[in-house]
Each structure stands twice: as C-alpha cells, then as structure tokens.
C-alpha cells in the first residue's frame, strides 16, 4: 500500500522563503484518485500544491510524489519527477511570447521524439479537448482569463502525465464550460487512470468529481480535515469544513 501511493504527505509543513504557513498536512493518495484542496482564499492552497509537486521544497515533515521522497531527493531527481506531472498555475503562466498551440507544443517538442506534424496534431487535439479549437493561433494576451485557464490545462495534459495538479481550474469559467471541465477531468481519470489534485471553491463540482478532500484551516495554521467530501456534508464532521460545504451548497 505504502509504495503504491502516488502522493504521500506526513506532517508536511509548507510556506514561502522559510515562513511556515500551513503545518501538519497528513494524507495519502492512491493512483487514479481525485483530490480536492479547499479552504478560504489566502490560506495556502497554491503554496501546498507547489510543495506537493516538488516545485518548492517542504519546510518540514515528509512528502513523496510519484515515489520520490522530496526531502532527500537531489535537484536532478526532482527535475525528473516534475517532468512526469502536469501543473496548471493559478495565474495560468502561459508563455506570453508563444501562441496557444506553441504553448501546448513546447513540452512535446522538448520531450517527445515525434515528427513535427504529429506533435502539431496532438497539440490541436488537446486544445480541442478544452474547447479552444478556434483560438489556437491566438497569443495569451489576446484571450480571456477563462480561456487562458483552459489553455493551461491543455498544456498540463501535453505529456499525458500520471499526475496533474490544477490550481483553480474552474475559476473564471461559465457554468457550462465548468461542467464540461468536470467531465473532462473524470474522463481523464477513467480512461488513463490519471491522478488529479485540484484546488476548487465550487462545492457541487467537488462533490461530483472528488474522491477525497483536504480542508486547510487558516486560523489554526494546519490541515483541518481530510476525507471524502460527502462526509463534510453531515453535521458532526469538522465544523469549519462542514460550514464551508453547507454554506456554499445553499448559495
């Protein structure tokens, strides 16, 4: 069981530049599961994603991603592991001097030994999956925030990674597109067994797609609760997580 988990976090502490923001993050995630990270804005969800992926080093505790123990890994090992996962940044972080198509092509050009034409076709397919078939030759500055998010998702999927981190993928999307995105996430998981870690504020969507949920409690500065999202709907679960789920459900 231990070795099979794709993501392991034991008493993990995360933060910026030596400043600890969140501590005691404890959970394990098996492959093919969907994990949602929730909590009030500014509580450290994005920071936690950076640490879980190995982009930043943990400030304490232990964490494993794709079987690599980040606390003892060398820079080269971390680089190799990062290559095997996809990441959508909260601000999309598209390469501003490349078109959307070139953005999706870049990882493939660097890491796939396929002819140009094939790479191009693959990139177009990934962009079509997120509904951007018409905007492939636009520059990132020429599209809306929601479109940038979707292009970032297409880039995160470029190399068919085993593990994808999505930081607020549905923020800025209309309900229809957001619903399609949920479907895409489920389909990725069901077809390719992709593990997905996402930050979201949308309770209905979390209830629909997530298997597990991490609630971060900013007042305590630590992980508040971990479990299947449905558990938090019941009274008697973690009070703040319950408030988060039930409040958003009413609205």
């Amino acid at each position: 069981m231990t070795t099979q988990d794709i993501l392991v976090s034991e008493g993990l502490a995360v933060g910026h530049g030596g400043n600890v923001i969140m501590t005691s993050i404890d959970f394990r995630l098996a492959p093919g599961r969907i994990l949602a990270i929730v909590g009030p804005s500014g509580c450290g969800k994005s920071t936690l994603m950076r640490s879980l992926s190995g982009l930043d080093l943990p400030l304490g505790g232990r964490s494993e991603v794709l079987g690599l123990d980040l606390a003892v890994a060398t820079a080269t090992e971390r680089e190799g592991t990062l290559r095997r996962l996809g990441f959508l940044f909260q601000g999309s972080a598209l390469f501003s001097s490349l078109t959307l198509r070139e953005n999706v092509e870049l990882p493939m050009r660097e890491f796939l030994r396929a002819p140009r034409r094939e790479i191009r076709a693959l990139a177009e397919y990934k962009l079509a999956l997120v509904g951007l078939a018409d905007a492939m030759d636009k520059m990132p500055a020429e599209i809306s925030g929601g479109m940038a998010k979707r292009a970032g998702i297409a880039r995160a999927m470029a190399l068919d990674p085993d593990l994808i981190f999505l930081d607020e993928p549905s923020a800025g999307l209309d309900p229809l597109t957001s619903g399609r995105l949920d479907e895409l996430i489920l389909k990725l998981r069901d077809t390719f067994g992709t593990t997905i870690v996402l930050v979201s504020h949308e309770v209905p969507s979390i209830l629909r797609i997530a298997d597990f949920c991490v609630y971060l409690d900013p007042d305590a500065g630590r992980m508040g609760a971990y479990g299947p999202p449905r558990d938090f709907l019941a009274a008697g679960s973690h009070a703040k997580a319950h408030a988060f789920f039930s409040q958003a459900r009413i609205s």
Partner: protein
Amino acid sequence: MSHAPASPPRARTEVLADGTTVITLGGDWNRQAATPAIAFKGDQVRLVTEQLGDFDSSLPGWIHAHFRQVRRLDLSALPSRLRSLVELAEQSTTTPSPETTGGLLARFGGWGLESSSSWGRAFEHIGDVALGLGRLLIGRARVNWQDFWLQLQTAGVDALPIVALLGFLTGLIMAYVGLIQLRQVGATVYVANLVSLAMTREMGALMTGVIACGRTATSFASQLGSMNVSQETDALRVLGINPVEYLGLPRILAVTLMVPLLSVFATFIGVFGGMIVACAGDLSVSQYLTQVVVAISFRSFLVGFIKSIAFGFIAAWAGCYRGAVAKPSALGVGEAATSAAVLGITLIVISDALFAVIFNLFNF
C-alpha cells in the same frame, strides 16, 4: 446632502469612573476634511454619537485605525449603518501589520545585507551557467535553440548600425586628438599607429561591450524578469526544464559569439574613421594604410579579440542574472534592466583593467 452647511468632524474624549473611555463623535465626516486627533488610554472604549451629520468611508476608516487594537470596544450606541461598516472591517483584521520602521542606520544595514546576499546569488547563478555549459558539452543540456538564432539576429546583426556609428566616431575622435599632439613634434604619420593600435587592443572591444550592455543586457533582464512575474519560469521548471539552461544559455552563447565579430567590425570602421580625419590634410591614404599594416600585429588583434569574448559573456550574463533575480513586479523588472546595464558596464571596465595587468605581465 449639500443643503446643510457642513460642520467639521469632532471627537470628544471623556473617562468614566469605571475606567471606560467614552468617545463622542459628531459633525460631518468626509475624506476632504482633516480628521480630529484623539488620545486615550486603556482597553475599554465606548463609541457614541452626538449630532453626527453626513459621513463617508473616512469615519469607519478613522475608527478602524484608532480602535482596532482595543480589547473591549463597545459599538452598540452607534447608528446601525456605521456599526456594520466598522464590524465588517474588524472581522477581517487578524494582525495589524507593523509600520515599517526605517532608521537610516537600519536601512544601511539592510542594504549591506541585501548586497552581500545578492553576491551569493550571483555566484550561484554563474555556477549554474557553468554547469549548464558543461552539460551542453556532453550533450545533455536542454537549450532553446530558437532563442539562440533569434538572439544572433537581434543582439548581433541588428546592432551593426549603432556599432558602426560609434566605432566610426571613436576612430575619428582619436585621430583628431592625436593629430593635435603629433603636429607639435612633426610626427603626424604616427596617427595611423595610434588609431589602429587603440582600436584593435582597446576601444573596439570596449565600445562593443558597452553597447551590448546597453542594448542586450537590459533587454535580457526585462525579458527574463517579466517571465518571472508571470510565473513562466515556474512553468518551465514544472516541465523539468532548467530555466538557466533553457533561457540563459542560448542568450549567453549568442552574445558571446556575436560581440567578438561586432568588435572586429567596429575596429575596422574605427580605423577607417581615423583615416578620414588623417587624410583630410596631413597624410595620404597610402601613407596611412601602410602605417596601419605596420602597427597592427596579430598579437594586438588577439588581445582585442580575447577581451571582446569576455565582454560579450559579461554583458549577456549580467542581463540573464539580473532578470533571474528580478523582483516580481513592474518596478522590479525595470530595476532589473537598469541594474543589468550598470553591473555589466562595471564588470567590463574592471575586467578590462585586469586584462591590462595580465597582458602586461606576460608582455603581450
């Protein structure tokens, strides 16, 4: 509500027998009027109103600023509209941010610390570049070759006009100044030696290096700096691509290759510029050219060439380094560009002096 004449905002303080401070607020509060000053002690405060007129956000703002640290604040006597505005802000305040104290000494201390830690990062960065070059040699570096070709064009070919102009003027000025001196000893023919030697050994490389700092180092710093702002560098790292290798190496290689070529070009143009002045009255063209051929040795050409390679590397590295450590803001990117030019030019002049000492030691 402009019908009633506005009365100035008031705040009256009185302390009750039980230690509670009661603050009575009145008058019209708006952002244009100066807010009253108050002084109070203790952590039990009650706010009441008396003839309170119109108010805008300046009143709840004033209350927030003065009383947010009071432990027992009684707002129950305030009009409900005002109370809810104050309470809304109260909820979101967890810890008041300390006002930045900036004594002169403390700031100098901070500056010293900052610059000493930035030297650490500079060495770290140059180490990364060296490591990347090593990996490139064994064919394991991931480099954006598109950027390389692009920079050959923009940092090299596109710089030809400005390099030509400045090289030409440098030669011209040296010949002009030299002639004035040489006429006094009747040795005007040596102006050719002066100009050609100075251009090959010194000025060709120096001028080109400085131009590279002004044109290229600044542009690299703002390119890479703005990629930091938009997290594009992180997006590369998350692909397992080392940004120093991918973005830095192609730029450094392109410039280190182009600056020596530009420098040779500047040297020729400078010698030509000197000829225009020398042959305007004192020398014939063939006299000048004969002297040039005598004066320039392969050795002095080599001196200039080696220096220009170093200067090209310095200019490109300064740009990449300052861009990589740029603060993530519009201001930070601007600062990165400025400091890249300053750092590049300073290092070029310092290394030029070092080269002079070294070449002198070896009689080069």
